[in-house]
């Protein structure tokens, strides 16, 4: 009998990230942070941006719902960002068209609230008015309109102006001092009254002015909107964007323009405005990931409504949502216990993909199918495979430079349903790993065979 040889995973050629920690817990127990998640429609969602960062950066748990994996959603247009390279800013840069679309969406939300057109227009115009000086091409860092990227002097909270994406660095590097009497401040102090009737997104903006407790939302009339205001102060912060627009009545002759046309040059400038329809990206955790964070590490609390759920309850609830949850969870737990990062294997037709250290560093090494059997080593299989299907699966796996692994979870026959109703049953479960390999009979190959 020969055992499969372990082939160390290949490192990715270009790694853009640095490794923080294997798990979102500190070894030693200091500064232990318990993150929060909620169950919405049978999905586990994390909304707090700090929690999102913690969970993703340390262990690669979850997936941003608007991103490919790491939550990096931004409405910024990369083409424009490249175009306006000279401008030193962290704010997203979008086209005027895109911005107008958002204004439209905000408009329809306000209209749904029953406000008449006049008020809607007034509110919107006020909210979306330009802040600070417009950017032109060739503007240096001094004119970054630091005003709009700084907190108002009314509050201490300097992080409010972070764009919604997961970017860490604060905008502080936008130099320049705060300019008094600018539009940002004006709109800040003066608009409190008007913003009382705002939609949730814009009222969110008013939170910035008041201490977080007195969210402008609280003075709102419609109670159903209160339900949305579970956000913390950070989420209430308005998002500032740079909108590329054509300047009317340009008066900066010395600036170079992007389009070299003759006299009537419509100069393109960047104008800082508030985004009236902000989209928040959340982190979605798979059921296995969520349960692992709660049960194995104890660093996550999952709420259903207002109520945090106990471990046994979660085990039960998740098993109802996904009938094979226990099987896939046990495999997940086993591989996490070995220091590997399992992610969902949907794209390869299997249950899990195993990464060493994390997706950014190494290519996934193993594609795993998990099956639960009794201690006669038989059981009703989730994926009964013929040799033909196995062959096909092996082929696609090999094409992606992965190895196909079968993971059998062996459960003692005397394990009752009651015992399986808690995750403690795992202590009596054994795990058998098998690797599927193709044997090539042609003679040249057999010399190098690992047999």
């Amino acid at each position, binding site marked *: *009998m020969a055992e499969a040889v372990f082939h160390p995973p290949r490192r990715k050629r270009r790694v853009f990230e640095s490794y923080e920690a294997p798990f979102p817990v500190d070894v030693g*127990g200091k500064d232990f942070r318990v993150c929060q998640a909620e169950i919405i429609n049978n999905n586990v969602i994390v909304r707090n941006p700090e929690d999102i960062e913690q969970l993703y950066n340390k262990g690669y748990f979850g997936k941003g719902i608007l991103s490919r994996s790491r939550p990096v959603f931004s409405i910024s247009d990369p083409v424009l960002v490249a175009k306006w390279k000279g401008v030193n800013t962290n704010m997203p840069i979008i086209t005027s068209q895109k911005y107008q679309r958002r204004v439209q969406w905000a408009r329809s939300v306000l209209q749904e609230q029953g406000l008449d057109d006049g008020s809607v227009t007034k509110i919107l115009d006020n909210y979306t008015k330009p802040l600070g000086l417009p950017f032109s091409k060739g503007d240096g860092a001094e004119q970054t309109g630091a005003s709009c990227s700084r907190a108002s002097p009314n509050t201490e909270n300097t992080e409010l102006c972070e764009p919604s994406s997961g970017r860490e660095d604060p905008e502080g590097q936008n130099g320049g001092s705060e300019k008094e009497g600018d539009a940002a401040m004006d709109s800040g102090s003066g608009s409190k009254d008007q913003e009382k009737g705002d939609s949730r997104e814009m009222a969110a903006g008013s939170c910035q002015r008041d201490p977080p407790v007195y969210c402008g939302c609280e003075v709102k009339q419609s109670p159903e909107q209160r339900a949305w205001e579970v956000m913390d102060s950070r989420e209430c912060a308005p998002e500032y964007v740079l909108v590329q627009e054509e300047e009317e009545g340009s008066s900066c002759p010395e600036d170079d323009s992007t389009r070299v046309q003759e006299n009537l040059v419509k100069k393109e400038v960047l104008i800082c405005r508030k985004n009236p329809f902000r989209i928040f990206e959340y982190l979605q955790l798979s059921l296995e990931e969520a349960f692992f964070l709660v049960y194995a590490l104890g660093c996550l609390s999952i709420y259903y409504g207002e109520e945090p759920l106990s471990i046994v309850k979660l085990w039960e609830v998740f098993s109802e949502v996904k009938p094979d949850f226990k099987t896939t969870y046990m495999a997940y737990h086993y591989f996490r216990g070995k220091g590997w990062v399992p992610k969902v294997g949907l794209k390869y037709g299997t249950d899990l993909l195993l990464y060493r250290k994390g997706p950014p560093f190494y290519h996934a090494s193993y594609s795993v199918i998990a099956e639960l*059997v009794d201690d006669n*080593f038989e059981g009703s299989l989730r994926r009964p495979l013929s040799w033909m299907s196995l062959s096909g699966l*092996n082929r696609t796996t090999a094409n992606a430079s992965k190895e196909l692994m079968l993971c059998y979870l*062996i459960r003692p026959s005397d394990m009752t349903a009651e015992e399986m109703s808690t995750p403690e049953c795992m202590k009596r479960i054994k795990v058998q790993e098998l690797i599927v*390999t193709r044997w090539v009979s042609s003679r040249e190959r057999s010399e190098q065979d690992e047999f």
Partner: protein
Amino acid sequence: GQKDFRPDGSARQAERLRRCCEEQWRLLSEERPERPGNLVKAEWKPEQGIVELKSPAGKFWHTMGFSERGKQCLLPEEALYLLECGSVQLFYRDLPLSIQEAYETLLCQEAMSLSHYQVFSHLKQLGYIVLRFDPSTVPSPYERQLNLESHCKSSGKHHRKRRRSSSPRLHEKKHKVSGDLPEAEGTSNKDEDDCGDSIPMDEKPLSVQPKESDAGSAEGESMPVPLGIGQKDSLSFSSSQAGDHKEGSTGTHAPRWDFTTITFPNVAPDQPCTHLSAPDNRLLPENVLGREVDAASWCTRINQKQEKLSRKERKQRERESRYKSSVNADQEVRHCSNWQEYKALLERRRQQRVWKRPSHLWDQAVTPLLRPEEVTSPAALLQQISVLQPSHILDGASRLQEDPEAMKIDFNVYQADAVSKFKKTNPGKPHVRMCVRSFDEQIPSLRALKQVTYLSGDVPLVFALVDHGEITFYSLKEFKLPVDVNH
């Protein structure tokens, strides 16, 4: 030119196909000239299901055929193969068999179906030596451990000298990991013999372990010699030491004394307690009397010597005194009347200091696995959360052997470059063993896999899948994912 991928109904395509078929038929029907002198004559014996040679065997006799009652014989698949090669002429009832007839006639047994033959032929053409599998030739795990294989090989030689180090297995080694864990790491064969096999230690039959994870199953074999089992499993992180597994040496007994009621006087210089009450008679040995006493006079006589510290010690004391304070200066500590209370106080303080444990997780029947204050390294963390136990492919396999439904192994395959040294009478250990299966069958269950892996002994097993003449080979191998801690 370009391949045609599907029928397009055109006349040109039909014509091309027709010409290809014609060509193929023509090639097949060509007569292959052979020198009649070289052709070995052989006769098919249906009652015995074998082929008897009527003239002396040629070169093929080195790796094929067998002798029976003085006659040279071939197995049906060997004969058919040689017929196709043009090395033998097959007769049945005095008439030569055509290839077509030979296929039909010789391959009607259960042991050698068409698919079996196709695998045989495929491997032979690649130069492998292929023999039928015979379960009785596989040494049992017991025999392997005693290295009887080497004795079989070197029959007639003296027993090799067994050095002490070569029989570690005679010591009964109790291993900590639960249940059956053969030496998954392969070679810790400390034998100096050059059998060189990595001996997969079999599980329970060979040791007198009190704990049986396959509870309820009687031992298949009761081996007289208690042999220790896999000494190491360095990859196992599971804290699988179930309480009942230990011999009870660390069992917690209820203490005989209630220490909360027994007071011990403190006669330290800073806490003079001069009145010592009479000790409880039950604490004293029989002929010893105790009485109460006023130890004041004694106290003046103890702690006389001035502790003279070396300069280094003094300096250290100075340093420490800046940061340390007497534990007794703490009022709360003073309220503790015994160690138990003191420890509880420490625990409370620690909890307050560390973090607030969410009660919906911690005040429940099932709590999180990780206790962060207890782990000091990532490896320790992994150990705390690893509760699932590893299993080896051969675990529990021995008790599955009596199953009549078990899969059969078909061939032993030896490598082509072993031809020169090959001895039919003593072929040695094959390179691989083959199980011939069909493509649309289900893959073997774990149970079937264990059975057949055990049956194969320590030789790797390959499944040969036949699909209308196309053959693919797969194997399902035991694997243990290593633990990855040092990122």
